[in-house]
């Protein structure tokens, strides 16, 4: 960074000489003169990108807050890399949840010489943007992109701290198998890459658990009339039905099933794991099961939740614990490598083992989080609520998971301890204001 400032000074001097007569000769001098006496902390820039405008702007801001909390905590604690005091700076950009804008701001961050990027929020934006970071050899960690393709591109600098969509099918299927214990399950999909892929994973896992799966039924992503399919299924009396598709088709499906008097348990993937199901299916939505990659925000560790609330005066919404962890991972890797140079800290990041707000984080070869959690939700009183966490094929009841998470918090590893001690003071102060 000092190198760049020096070259900037030279550039400015050259520019000044070229524009002789503009009276700017004085300008570079104070900059150079001011630099040596009190050695200013080296500024290291981290980038955060997410949609800050548009329909999911609230989620983008939530992500940004998570990253900001991590950066501010690190600055408050003081960071020394390679013998120099370092001040972290969070550069934030708005990708508008739009892939085209996403690539533009990605380039902007690269040009701003950030050493690492936290983001993007949407898979559809993360995937094209990742190529730009890859070219610039800047590590990126997404806290919320679940599309498998993101880490299947073979980029060494791309990571994510949430689970993948293709871990979801096995998760919801194993929950069905262990909790609902059905004899026969009907699987329906919407004939899209997402729906069919998810349904295939579910069917595979169910069959492996020795459960009979009826021949696949299919609609399309525009089907609203499932009466014929459901009437047929009614005759086969399945105990559970899984639908791979979005809420726009899943809602009518569920509504019609209940109208036909089908009593089976209905399960869905994350596409239909929304409160919209209640609107579309009415009372029929009550009690449905569905899965999402990652953890619900309540399950993040308490220290994080408290610090977040104290700093921003709002509750974290969705992925903030993950972006918080993502920023902390970059900081921890820089510490290990004792350098903010992406080329030096990237290998450390790849083999890191870190206890974060969302649990233990380790990456596999592709940059996916090992043993990523999946959450099972149910519709209760018109809202989807978490009921269980699936981790490495095991089902943990949500309340139990919260308890163990709380119990684990004080037993955080040693490097965490001073930070934990520093926290209450810092957290208490803004609260007083």
């Amino acid at each position, binding site marked *: 960074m000092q190198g760049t400032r020096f070259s900037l000074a030279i550039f400015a001097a050259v520019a000044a000489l070229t524009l002789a007569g503009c009276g700017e000769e004085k300008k570079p001098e104070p900059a150079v003169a001011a630099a040596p006496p009190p050695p200013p902390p080296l500024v290291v820039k981290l980038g955060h990108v997410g949609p800050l405008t548009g329909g999911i702007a609230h989620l983008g801001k939530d992500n940004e807050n998570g990253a900001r909390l991590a950066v501010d905590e690190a600055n408050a604690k003081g960071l020394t890399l390679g013998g120099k005091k370092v001040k972290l700076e969070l550069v934030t950009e708005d990708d508008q949840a739009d892939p085209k804008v996403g690539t533009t701001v990605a380039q902007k961050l690269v040009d701003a010489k950030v050493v690492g990027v936290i983001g993007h929020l949407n898979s559809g934006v993360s995937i094209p943007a990742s190529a730009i970071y890859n070219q610039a050899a800047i590590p990126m960690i997404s806290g919320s992109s679940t599309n498998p393709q993101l880490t299947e591109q073979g980029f060494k600098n791309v990571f994510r701290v949430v689970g993948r969509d293709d871990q979801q099918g096995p998760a919801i299927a194993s929950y069905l198998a262990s909790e609902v214990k059905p004899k026969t399950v009907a699987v329906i999909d919407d004939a899209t890459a997402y729906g069919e892929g998810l349904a295939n994973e579910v069917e595979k896992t169910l069959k492996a658990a020795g459960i009979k799966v009826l021949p696949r039924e299919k609609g*399309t992503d525009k089907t609203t009339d499932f009466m*014929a399919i459901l*009437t047929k299924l009614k005759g086969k009396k399945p105990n559970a039905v899984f639908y791979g598709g979005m809420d726009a088709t899943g809602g009518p499906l569920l509504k019609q099933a209940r109208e036909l008097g089908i009593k089976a348990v209905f399960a869905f993937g994350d596409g239909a794991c929304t409160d919209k199901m209640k609107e*579309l299916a009415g009372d029929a939505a009550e009690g449905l099961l569905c899965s999402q990659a990652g953890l619900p925000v309540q399950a993040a560790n308490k220290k994080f939740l408290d610090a977040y609330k104290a700093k921003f005066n709002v509750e974290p919404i969705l992925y903030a614990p993950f972006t918080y962890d993502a920023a902390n991972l970059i900081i921890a890797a820089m510490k290990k490598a004792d350098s903010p140079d992406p080329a030096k800290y990237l290998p450390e990041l790849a083999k890191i083992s870190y206890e974060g707000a969302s649990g233990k984080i380790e990456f596999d070869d592709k940059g996916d989080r090992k043993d990523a959690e999946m959450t099972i939700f149910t519709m209760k009183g018109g809202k989807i609520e978490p009921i269980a966490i699936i981790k490495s094929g095991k089902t943990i009841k949500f309340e139990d998971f919260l308890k163990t998470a709380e119990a684990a918090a004080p037993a955080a590893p040693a490097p965490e301890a001073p930070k934990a001690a520093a926290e209450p003071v810092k957290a208490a102060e803004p609260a007083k204001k």
Partner: protein
Amino acid sequence: MDIFLQQIINGLTLGSVYAIVALGYTMVYGIIQLINFAHGELVMIGAMVAFSVINALAGTHLPPVLIVFIGILAAIPVCMLVGYAMERIAYRPLRSAPRLAPLITAIGISIILQHLALLVWSRNPLAFPQIIPFVTFPIGGAIISGVQIAIILTSVLMMGALTFMVYRTKLGIAMRATSQNPLVAGLMGIDIDRIISFTFIVGAALAAVAGVMVGTYYGIAHYGMGSLLGMKAFSAAVLGGIGNLAGAMLGGILLGIVEALGAGYIGDLTNNVFGSNYQDVFAFMVLIGVLVFRPSGLLGERVGDRA
């Protein structure tokens, strides 16, 4: 057996909707030999307008059936207006043009209407407020819901009213005369332009009702919902013999039943080589079958020799 009966009920409900929409296609074709591909969009607009009205009234304490009725009453004039404007602006100037020109215009109108709806009602699927209490009646092991009964009854009623209008009123005589020979009808003092506009308006009103029925039945409306429904209703009209009112009704109901039975049994009959994903294909297989073996349709007598 109860499953079979249930599929027939499903098919009848679906078929009634197809029949109502098919009537719109067949009336327009009968009178100006135009396949109005934008007719499906009128169904969509009907559903969307009804959605807005029902959604606005859902909070009030009016009885649910009345709210839906108000929804229908709001949807009908809007669709009539769109239907009239469509004819006046897009089709009338092309009436003496080669037949391909209005056909392509119809496809263009369809796309324009879809995107207008997208601008007005957004691209998200709209969930109809679930206001109608859900009641079912058992018949022979199967169940039929109140909404299904309402759909079937409304359709029968509307088909009856339309038949009466076409065959028992002066306006109907004028419509039939125009359909048989516009030139001579004009010479007999019939205002052709008005009759054609009127035909579009009646078709649009039917489409509006069909839209409300589909919307409340499935509880969802979407700017793209009209195209597939329109294509299927068009197939139904061809199946019955396009240009023939009774044919459209018969074709619609037959198509609904074929679809329901097809989706319900093809998997079992073909050992799951073909599955329920072929549900939407049946309509078009029927269409192809009819065009190959009986181009004039089940009840159609006139072979397409008019231009």
